[in-house]
């Protein structure tokens, strides 16, 4: 139905929207995954008692 209403070049139009959706969804998924990975690593380091320089300085004060 949609393909016929898009005329003789429907495949080019549909392909444009599919490619855009794949790139945007891929970008969102990559950023979300990166966030989860960084948070997990930070959590592991903090559990082992490792602190950032600024945190260590605050503790000394």
């Amino acid at each position: 139905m949609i393909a016929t209403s898009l005329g003789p070049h429907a495949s080019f139009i549909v392909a444009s929207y599919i490619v855009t959706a794949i790139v945007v969804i891929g970008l969102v998924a990559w950023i979300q995954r990166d966030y989860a990975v960084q948070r997990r690593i930070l959590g592991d380091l903090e559990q082992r008692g490792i602190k950032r320089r600024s945190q260590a300085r605050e503790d000394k004060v």
Partner: protein
Amino acid sequence: MAVIEFFNNLANPTRFLALVNRVLPWLTALTVIVLAYGLYRVAGAPDDYQQGATVKIMFLHVPAAWLGMMGWGVMTVAAFGTLVWRHPLADVAAKAAAPIGAAFTFICLVTGSLWGRPMWGTYWVWDARLTSVLVLFLLYLGMLALYLTAEDPNRSARAAAILALVGAVNIPIIKFSVDWWNTLHQPASVLRMGGSAIDPSILVPLLIMALGFTLLFFTLHLAAMRNEILRRRVRSMRMMQAASA
């Protein structure tokens, strides 16, 4: 004055992260709403009298092109932040913008090719507009390679800032290429002297999509900046761990 104070306050990554965590859910919701409404308006937009339904590709192609250029614009401003003001988050902003700008430039190139085939009879021509956008994409890849290969973010920041400033020369070339040279690509029809040449029934959905894409860019950019700050914290903590071992 208030703007300078605002940016000074954001120089503290912890304060910046707190702000991002507060703003991001609202910005995400707004992005989804505007994009959904934009797509609804696109579905109802009429066909172009010359191009038929292929004009629907424009609603993706044009905003992606604008954001590909805006991404480099963000990196250029960030380059000044790195080199002149030495703002701690300037390089974080530049690094976070690079893959997002590259993705939008890629969308612009692919959708342009898919639009060109039925309208021009070819996927690609080496004319000034298409070539200068391809150069922008290659510049993005160069920037990503620079960040990927550099171990120390402090060292890569300066090189990346210089590359961003050099690459910024390409932005006005892209914008004015259709005026300076004979190209197959149509001249500017939205942002031009004397007003837009597009009928409101097509222009309004286009501007809504452009707003949605812009919101998407800044949502992803803030999220990527948050990731980069966390990555640098991880690096700093690992160095502390190595130093104390």
